[in-house]
């Protein structure tokens, strides 16, 4: 029993991170009907930027002691800012001009992903960097199950961010515009909404969430390297698809589903088959219900 509860905590932790990144895929798809294959690498950039931000803050502080919580929040905000800038540049320079040509944009996205990976490799070098955690690690034991502060922070911060997102999407004008665009692209500009602005906002939010995901992931698995975005990106992508790509609730649910599937698979099957199983799950979902659990319908009028 305690074993199951333990794994449950692990699954929720992993799922939270996947959900944060999956949201990025889903939001961009909802607004542009385009899968940003570079998003996993945006997550990786976020992880690296939060590392450098933490180093920077510490150096600026010098001798004065700053509470780690502040460094944590500061790094996250700085990483979000940097990641958003990079993602928006890519959107502006690479995606927007090709927006009309569906196939070209997707290829470009794949290319941008490769670009980000190798640019990071050039800047940082091939060595893996050890991430110094910004959370004082304490392990609590509740009902025989051990939970660490790291896990609590990850879960808490993720849920907080998702709640903020919910607020933005449901309660603000821009959020409403985002949802409107995902239902009917053509009509929205006719109502005075500047689609480009909303797209920019969407990319910004998506990359902020990915950056946060990067920071949190680096706390859970404290080794970061330029290729880390590939596998995590794919898992998050699978989460988005399973939950229904283009739908925000779907991304969140999908993230947790995949977290559970992966932890469960890891418990039953040999660990090297973990990735394979996630992809098989993807295939099954795609074949059974391609639009995912909460998916937008595939409309085709004849």
């Amino acid at each position, binding site marked *: 029993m305690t074993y199951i509860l333990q794994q449950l905590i692990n699954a929720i932790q992993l799922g939270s991170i996947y959900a944060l990144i999956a949201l990025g895929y889903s939001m961009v798809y909802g607004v542009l009907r*385009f899968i940003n294959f570079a998003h996993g690498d945006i997550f990786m950039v976020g992880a690296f930027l939060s590392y450098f931000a933490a180093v920077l803050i510490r150096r600026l502080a010098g001798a004065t002691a700053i509470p780690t919580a502040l460094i944590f929040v500061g790094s996250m905000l700085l990483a979000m800012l940097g990641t958003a800038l990079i993602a928006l540049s890519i959107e502006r320079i690479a995606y927007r001009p090709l927006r009309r040509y569906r*196939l070209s944009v*997707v*290829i470009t996205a794949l*290319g941008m992903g490769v670009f980000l990976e190798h640019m990071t490799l050039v800047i940082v070098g091939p060595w893996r960097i050890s991430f110094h955690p910004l959370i004082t690690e304490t392990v609590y034991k509740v009902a025989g199950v051990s939970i660490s502060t790291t896990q609590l922070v990850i879960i808490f911060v993720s849920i907080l961010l998702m709640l903020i997102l919910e607020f933005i999407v449901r309660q603000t004008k821009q959020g409403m515009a985002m949802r409107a665009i995902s239902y009917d692209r053509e009509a929205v500009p006719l109502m005075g909404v500047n689609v480009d602005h909303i797209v920019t906002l969407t990319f910004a939010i998506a990359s902020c969430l990915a950056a946060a995901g990067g920071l949190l992931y680096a706390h859970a698995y404290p080794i970061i390297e330029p290729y880390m975005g590939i596998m995590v990106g794919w898992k998050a992508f699978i989460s988005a698809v399973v939950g229904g790509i283009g739908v925000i609730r779907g991304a969140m649910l999908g993230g947790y589903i995949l977290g559970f599937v992966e932890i469960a698979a890891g418990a039953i099957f040999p660990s090297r088959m973990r990735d394979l199983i996630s*992809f098989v799950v993807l295939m099954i979902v795609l074949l059974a219900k391609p639009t995912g659990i909460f998916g937008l319908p595939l409309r085709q009028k*004849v």
Partner: protein
Amino acid sequence: MAQWQKMRSHLSAIPVLAYLLGFGIASAIELFIGYPVASLLGLPTMPTLFGIILVQQSLALLPSAIAYDLLIYLVPTYIAARLLTPLVQKLLQKVSSQRLMLVYVLALFLVALLWGGFHEYRTMILCLMGINFILCISLNLVNGYMGEFSVGHAGFMGVGAYIASILTVWVFPRSLGHLVFPLALLAGGAGAAIAGLLVAIPSFKIRGDYLAIITLATNFIIKNGIENIERIGGSRGFMGMAKLTNVPWVFFWSVLTLVLIRNFVLSPYGRGVIAIREDEIAAEAMTVNTRRMKIIAFCTSSFFAGIAGGLFAHLLLYINPSTFTLLKSTECLVMVYLGGMASISGSLVGAATFTILLEMLRPLEVWKWVLIPLLLLVMLLRRHTGLMGFREFQFLIPREEAEVYGSTSH
């Protein structure tokens, strides 16, 4: 300006075939005077790839490299081409279009042998070009002609590579070598074609982005699947193949692929595939059996990817699953889009350009993969269907079609 125009029209008046033969003659001459000229110019060795590699090692060699290219390649090629032009023009008039393709193929083969000669490195480049061409044109069949979005081509390449290698290393006796090579390749292709069904059947109901995701998933599942089979080496890879891939073999398979796919595309079945790209529902309404066509297109595409994989395996003599990931699939996509969608000529151009580009950028190592996406982006921004999108070289179009069209549009 006028001088430039004059030169341009003068140069383009010489038929391509003449240039090709001229280059062959230059290469033949190089066999004899290559080394002496190189050392005379102060180059450490005879340049293998037009001096590009040498220059990257030492920038000071640039003037000598340029001199070499002029003396050995450009000038003799031009002179020979000029001299051959009247003969070539007579030949082009006499020969039917079917035979014309044969002439080009023979000429190209001759030139490849002459230029490649005994240089290991050049042979490898030529083989890689051929393999890339097969990958490119097979992917173009699905992405360009059928308008689908297959992003997992490397998976099928991997299936072919492994099956062919397992056959030549474990099953067939080594002494039979070249005799069983085609069989092994065909088996690899067949295996890849069956794997292609994994994508073909979902494609009946699913299109666009979702199908792209399925092709991705298939690629990963194949790669992960191979990694999990310890018997064939898992993630450590597989080796032991004999170096059976050579210029003649690659040439043979490249030409075969080109001819078969070109024929298919020109036929009513090929038009059916194109109809699916344009409007699947209308195609069905006009009697096109879209399901059958999809299976044929996907399986043919992956079949040839498998052949390319087998050739690749017997060139590098070592394969492992991480060769056949999304990065390799992306390479194939870049070639297709660079060269041009729905264009066989485009696949030729794309594959050749890309292979040389990769080699040129190799010393840059990591920067290579920083530059290539940027190049791709610039390419796509300028012409979003690729260099030769939807267009073909004249010699690839049979007379029947040319009469119908009277132009190079497709």
